[in-house]
């Protein structure tokens, strides 16, 4: 699991690569909240193109990101979601919680 990010004009983009499970969840959560706290963005984009696996630990992470962005009156966008993570998002009914851009 690897997370890189950049913020341009209030749009924070975080790129997730690798497998997101409980083993990496704490690290991923720290990276996420740290970046949001540092930039206080208007929009947070999670680019999941290189996320090869995600389970319910990812659901908790996305819900947390959504909450964080709500406290900023901003919004969360999920981008380039691969098939397996998308099926997990759907199973959890999360496709309504965040905008998904493919």
């Amino acid at each position: 699991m690897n997370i890189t990010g950049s913020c341009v004009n209030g749009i924070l983009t975080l790129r997730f690569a690798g497998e997101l499970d409980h083993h990496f969840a704490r690290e991923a959560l720290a990276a996420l909240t740290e970046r949001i706290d540092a930039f206080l963005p208007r929009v947070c984009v999670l680019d999941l193109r290189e996320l090869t696996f995600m389970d319910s630990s990812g659901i908790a992470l996305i819900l947390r990101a959504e909450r964080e962005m709500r406290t900023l009156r901003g919004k969360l966008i999920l981008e380039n979601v691969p098939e397996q993570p998308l099926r997990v998002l759907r199973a959890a009914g999360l496709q309504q919680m965040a905008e998904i851009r493919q």
Partner: protein
Amino acid sequence: MKVNNEARVEFPGLSANEGFARSIAACFAAQLDPTLEELGDLKTAVSEAVTNCIVHAYPNEAGRVSLRLRILEGDVLEVRIRDWGTGILDVERAREPLFTTGGEERSGMGFSIMECFMDSLRVRSAPGKGTVVTMRKRISGKAGR
């Protein structure tokens, strides 16, 4: 019920073994020539069940987790994941979507995901004794059997 093949592996409940358990299950399933989607569903379900052992069954130690994989008649893959940890007081309730005793880091969707991605899910548990989760999925395979 005819069992055509079987494999077992045991490991301590360390989070590093979540990925290991997923890979083992996927490797074993390979002989049924599953589609990528079937493989993804299987790995997700295994990940959920094993994570539950690590997070809920053994909150303070890396207890023993057992994974048994079987191929049953009719290209049915069976996965059984067992722990000897805390157990579940009310299984009905635990299986409801969004129910969690895990707090912030959990979403309470694990059992729902297992149910959704596999054909059947059985949960047997006794407080103080442990939990056995059995899941089955028919693999239609790339040839679309």
